[in-house]
């Protein structure tokens, strides 16, 4: 059963095809990594999936429903969650308020539980903007997880995290796997190799290759295009 499917999904910026007729499927329960060089169209692609960026052409299907015409908030309500590449928390509000907004309710125990998953439960009353950068990233992830989405889209979640925090992040994602389908944009190849069931490589807006981590690792095209240049 496919949770997410795109058909001919395309985004044109002033003549440039940032994402070019991408046909893509994501099975329920899978952890899928999207990799590729900068400017390959990864963020634009997940932007169109989540509805932040309108598609120029093509369709997005979520859980058997064509959601192409739906605005972002309606897609989120149907069970997507999205964490931003550039940290987008409510910097002037407390961690409690941040997570409560993600949960949609102000139940203290539930907020604490959600923060506990990223080890921030003891900072509930702090102002989010006062957190260290790595902790802000973790809060962002906690907000995504708190929504108990069916599809969690993570745009470069480990950027700026310390080694130990990355370890905790990997553990968290593995815990979620099974219930939550995860679409992950990631530059850190060790995270990708450790987590992903499957990998799609995007280059200049097109799918270059798709396969298991081992297959991708062995793929000569991918090595030329991406892994080789590191």
């Amino acid at each position, binding site marked *: 059963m496919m949770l997410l499917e795109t058909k001919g999904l395309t985004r044109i910026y002033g003549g440039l095809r940032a994402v070019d007729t991408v046909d893509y499927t994501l099975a329920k329960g899978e952890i899928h990594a999207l990799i590729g060089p900068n400017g390959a169209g990864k963020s634009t692609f997940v932007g169109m999936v*989540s509805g*932040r960026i309108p598609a120029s052409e093509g369709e997005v299907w979520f859980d058997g429903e064509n959601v192409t015409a739906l*605005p*972002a*908030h*309606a897609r*989120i*309500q149907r069970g997507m969650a*999205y964490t*931003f590449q550039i940290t*987008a*928390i*409510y*910097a*002037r*509000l407390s961690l409690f*308020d941040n997570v*409560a*907004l*993600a949960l*949609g*309710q*102000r139940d203290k125990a539930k907020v604490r539980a959600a923060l506990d998953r990223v080890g921030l439960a003891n900072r509930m009353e702090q102002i989010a903007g006062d957190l260290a950068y790595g902790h802000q990233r973790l809060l962002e992830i906690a*907000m995504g997880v708190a*929504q108990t989405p069916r599809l969690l889209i993570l745009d470069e979640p480990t950027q700026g995290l310390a080694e130990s925090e990355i370890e905790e992040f990997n553990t968290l994602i593995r815990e979620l796997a099974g219930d939550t389908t995860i679409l992950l944009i990631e530059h850190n190849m060790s995270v990708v190799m450790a987590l992903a069931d499957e990998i799609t490589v995007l280059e200049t807006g097109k799918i270059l290759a798709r396969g298991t981590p081992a297959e991708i690792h062995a793929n000569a095209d991918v090595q030329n295009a991406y892994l080789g240049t590191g």
Partner: protein
Amino acid sequence: MSLDTRSVTLHLGLIAALIVLGFVLPTYHQGNLARILVLATYAVGYNVLFGYTGLLSLGHAMFFAAGMYGCGLAMHLGGVTVIPALVIGLICAAALSAVVALLALRTIGVAFMIVTLMFAQSVYLTALYLGEWTGGDEGFVIAQASRQIAGYALTDPLTRYYAALSLFAIALLITARMMQMSFGRVLIGVRENEERTRMLGYDVFRHKLAAVVISGTIAGAAGAGYAVLFGYVGATFASVQYSIFPLLWVLLGGMGTTIGPLVGVAFMFYLIDYASGITNAYMLIAGAVLVLLTLFARAGIVGEIRNRWAPWLP
């Protein structure tokens, strides 16, 4: 829990203090304070949109005026009694704010400010244009005899004071409660980071729409209250100046604080009252205060207190 208790204590304590003040104050200040409370209700309404949702309207006078004219004309021309007239005023303000919101919310930032300014300007000009009914610039006076509820004459200073206080208390408690509920927190979310709020699955447009209508309706309630309590309706209340006032009050008192609007209105009222005794150019004070606030105290009086000493202030 303690946070909520403190905020309940603050609001109920404030209202209790105002009830006591009604008995203690001399008639002159009783009249002043009644006026301050009605204008503070207007500011409370403005604060819902500007302080909590982060939308800066330069046209709220049109909602105040919609309530005022709706109520005032119903009494003056239609011979309607006070309570139904107030309801008519509220409906007028709610309807106008819904229409304006549907159009103006298609814009953001500076364009939103100018669109609201222009809509308010056309409402003001319409009030002048329909001078046959509205009395234009001169306005009209509502007959003293009709200004009474269940036999209580609203022309009596003490009755008027308590009527004004009731209006303010209702607006204050509704907004204070609203801001503790999920709905209010989402409005704050829209103010702080609109894109994030949308990507948490909230329909940002509908929340903004609701904020404009609630804000406009409270402003209209203040306008209707003003007409009933002070018996005068005039186009001045629809002018640009009356759109700038709530911005000034809320900035001064503290945007996004529940008691800031009252503090701002009271402060400004007595400042202008004092200044107008010295010079006829008393609006100079308003200008200077606006500039100083912009430069030095963006958080306003209550906002600065919250930042420095009392972070729990709602």
